[in-house]
């Protein structure tokens, strides 16, 4: 079976990978990492993942119903994002691509704000300083350099803050990501590179991007790289927490490769049946990030079914609210396009505004 995640001569099991929870939900030990999380925290992460998946599915429905221009689903990557997102300290700063809905959730950004971009009413959607989470970057890999620069600023301020940047396996081929590695290594920037290797860059498998496992790229740039089971929320959390602490303490950068799988399409415009086989998807269904935590919570902590039901009810209510919020989301005032194009007065902006007002477009209040 030609699986996208198989690398020449190396199957998944042969590559060292930090795992604390097997796909069956069994706790396993690792020589370097131990989970410090108690029952409530693990349950909380299961709740996060359940909510994120539910909201993501709601967004897909909204797109199918013509309410969003596009949606980038994260299904399959919930453990990678929640494990990483819950490892952050409030003052850390994060740079997302466009699929980091789970990180946005952990940073406290209201879900309807994530959808502003996808409803095409905004290019951002939230105040990046308030939530310590930058606005989405759609051009693949640009944010890696921006994040390293931010980390260099943190370094110059003498602050104990970490910067974390998110990108996918496809981005690792971009010049900007490789330049970001060079800069981070050269300046010992306090940054964590978090690559979600979901095996597919739209239709291109990871083997098209790299002859070696992605985490091993770090060695060539002079900092540690580590592969973690991206569908194991406990392992992702521990690995990320340690890398963030390492950055805050002045230890420099780390590359984390969260080995995971994009269960759905790249975006709602994509058709994965054209380039990958069902059998591969079936294999990964057995590694579902939610199921293994649930199995663990039931077996290890005897969490009753009623508590999981309560989470599902909560997620449904949030999804209903998200739907209502999105449907209530108006198009922006056309005049608002002029508002932030420049920080200072600009004659062409004044001219454009005058033109639009004379044509009777927009609210005219700007």
């Amino acid at each position, binding site marked *: 079976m030609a699986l996208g995640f198989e690398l020449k001569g190396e199957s998944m099991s042969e590559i060292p990978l930090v795992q604390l929870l097997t796909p069956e939900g069994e706790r396993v030990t690792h020589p370097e990492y131990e989970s410090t999380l108690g029952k409530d925290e693990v349950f909380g992460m299961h709740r996060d993942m359940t909510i994120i998946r539910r909201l993501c599915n709601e967004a897909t429905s909204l797109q199918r119903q013509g309410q969003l221009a596009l949606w980038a689903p994260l299904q399959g990557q919930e453990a990678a994002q929640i494990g990483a997102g819950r490892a952050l300290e409030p003052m850390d700063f994060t740079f997302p691509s466009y699929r980091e809905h789970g990180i946005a959730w952990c940073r406290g950004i209201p879900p309807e704000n994530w959808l502003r971009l996808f409803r095409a009413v905004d*290019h*951002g959607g939230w*105040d*990046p*300083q308030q939530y310590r989470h*930058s*606005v989405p*970057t759609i*051009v693949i890999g*640009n944010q*890696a*350099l*921006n*994040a*390293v*620069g*931010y*980390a*260099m*600023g*943190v370094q*110059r*301020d003498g602050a104990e803050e970490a910067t974390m940047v998110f990108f996918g396996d496809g981005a690792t081929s971009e*010049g*900007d990501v490789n*330049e*970001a590695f*060079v*800069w981070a290594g*050269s300046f010992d920037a306090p940054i964590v590179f978090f690559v979600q290797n979901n095996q597919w860059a739209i239709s291109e498998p990871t083997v098209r991007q790299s002859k070696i496992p992605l985490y091993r790229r770090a060695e060539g740039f002079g900092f540690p790289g580590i592969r973690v089971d991206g569908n194991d929320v406990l392992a992702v959390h521990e690995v990320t927490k340690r890398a963030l602490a390492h950055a805050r303490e002045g230890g420099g950068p780390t590359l984390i490769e969260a080995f995971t799988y994009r269960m759905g399409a790249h975006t709602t415009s994509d058709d994965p049946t054209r380039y990958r086989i069902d059998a591969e998807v079936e294999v990964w269904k057995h590694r579902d990030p939610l199921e293994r935590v649930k199995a663990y919570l039931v077996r290890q902590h005897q969490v009753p079914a009623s508590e999981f039901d309560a989470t599902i009810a909560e997620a449904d209510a949030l999804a209903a609210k998200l739907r209502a919020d999105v449907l209530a989301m108006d198009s922006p005032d056309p005049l608002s396009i002029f*508002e*932030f*194009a*420049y*920080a*200072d007065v*600009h*004659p*062409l902006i004044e001219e454009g505004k005058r033109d639009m007002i004379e044509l009777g477009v927009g609210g005219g209040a700007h």
Partner: protein
Amino acid sequence: MAQMTMAKALNEGLRRALEDNPKVLLMGEDIGKLGGVFRVTDGLQKDFGEDRIIDSPLAESGIVGTAVGLAIRGYRPVCEIQFDGFVYPAFDQIVSQVAKLHSRSHGVYKMAMVIRIPFGGQIGAIEHHSESPEGYFAHTAGLRVVSPTTPNDAYWMIQQAITHDDPIIFCEPKCRYWEKGEVDLDRPPRGLFDAHVAREGSDVTVVAYGPSVRTAVRAAEAASAEGRSVEVIDARSIAPLDLPPMVASVQKTGRLVVVAEAPANASVASEIVARLTEECFYSLRAPALRVTGYHTPYPPSRVEEEYLPNIDRILDAVDRVMGFES
């Protein structure tokens, strides 16, 4: 008042900006110990340290991309791109992030950064060292583009650009780096985005910027020997254009020639012509002409004199607008 070269004036301007604000950082290739290939940053690393005068890895996208992050963090980075022809690896960051992040973040992120680019020809260089990429940036909403032409302008405009909150592409006419001039250390001559009448005249208006201003002034001097009074306007700001002084001049002379090294097709020179035709339609007594580089890749510099707008070509255009019969 002090006499200095443009390179020294930029150096002094940068020094003063570094002294005025601890958030100002310089970053670029070879700008530290070496002082930059043109020595514009000479001695600054020794005085301000390696954390503020950052010798960067050899990666232009890296320079601009990390400057974006530093700007988000509240720094005011000044990037040096070593030569015009090497800015293209950074083009993606400039267009996709630098120009757009203020808008995308609803004004939360100030992209208060300056990207210095030594540009233009007339130095007998090899390929990629004489280009005029300003049009790409002038075209991009979210950016501003300026170019000083005298040591005094260089000293003040670099400081004004650094204190400005929008990202600024700062095009330095490298052929004038070594030319000396008076610098008034106490008072800026004018605002960063103000055009300036470099030489007064009454028959024809010649608008130029950057390295072409000197050529235009020399052409005006030659024209004066033939009894023609040519007014030369130094645009200084390429984007936005400071139109009112240009409009006033064309209304006075009724004739316009625009001079630039960049090829004319879809260029800044074309924009100046379009704008002034729109604003001065009834004052124009002849179609406006452009004198620019030809539509070829920048040639081997042994023939750049023939490629670039030179005095003869400008005088020829002056003759044509003067001789036009409607």
